[in-house]
């Protein structure tokens, strides 16, 4: 199917690559279908594009590359909701917020990770409230990210 995006124009995607968000993303509860795209310049990031609303897209990052001791608890209830059979089914991303001042000041939200069962294409954003988990965690505090950001 062809989807419309505000940033990348029309993109053709396979329907079996559509990710279904149970109860949507917080504040975007009415949007449940998203597509996940790799970014050719940088493997640490992904684009999460709403299929139903072209203007809504998120830049996602692998939080474990940002904060090595980051972790997310996968409760039995959540595993059931996402139809997770083994923990390896789940990939975790956090959203990136880029302020007006530009990417150098970008932050990622460690309190609201997005869990995706890539096998079943089911996802959910959860609240992961913990000491040291910041809603605005600086993205470029980590040397590795500094080196790998080429854009």
């Amino acid at each position, binding site marked *: 199917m062809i989807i419309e995006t505000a940033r990348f124009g029309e993109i*053709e995607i396979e329907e079996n690559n559509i990710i279904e968000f149970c109860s949507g993303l*917080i504040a975007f509860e009415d949007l449940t279908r998203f597509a996940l*795209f790799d970014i050719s310049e940088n493997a640490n990031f992904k684009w999460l594009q709403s299929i139903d609303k072209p203007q809504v897209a998120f830049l996602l990052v692998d939080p474990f590359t940002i904060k090595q001791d980051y972790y997310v608890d996968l409760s039995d209830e959540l595993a059931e909701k996402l139809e997770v059979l083994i923990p390896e089914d789940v990939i975790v991303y956090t959203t990136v917020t880029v302020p007006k001042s*530009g*990417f150098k000041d970008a932050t990622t939200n460690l*309190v609201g990770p997005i869990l995706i069962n890539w096998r079943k294409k089911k996802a959910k954003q959860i609240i992961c409230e913990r000491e040291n988990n910041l*809603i605005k965690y600086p993205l470029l505090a980590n040397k590795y990210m500094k080196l790998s950001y080429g854009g």
Partner: protein
Amino acid sequence: MLVLSRKIDEGIIIGDNIKIRVIAIEGNKVKLGIIANKDISIVREEILEAVKNENLSAGQIDDASLNWSIMVPQPEKK
């Protein structure tokens, strides 16, 4: 909004399965105990609000420096 007065060790029950009890009151802080099924998510209101606001700003990136091109995923080989 329904407003109820409760003392320490008193509680309220919401629906069939959610129990909330006042555990302690210290100054302007109230400690609540909550019993609910595990599939009921319980979060502090201001945390949810903060994540909501963060999602709203994260979902509208207009930084021109982010002109990364995307790779459309290929169907998985059966």
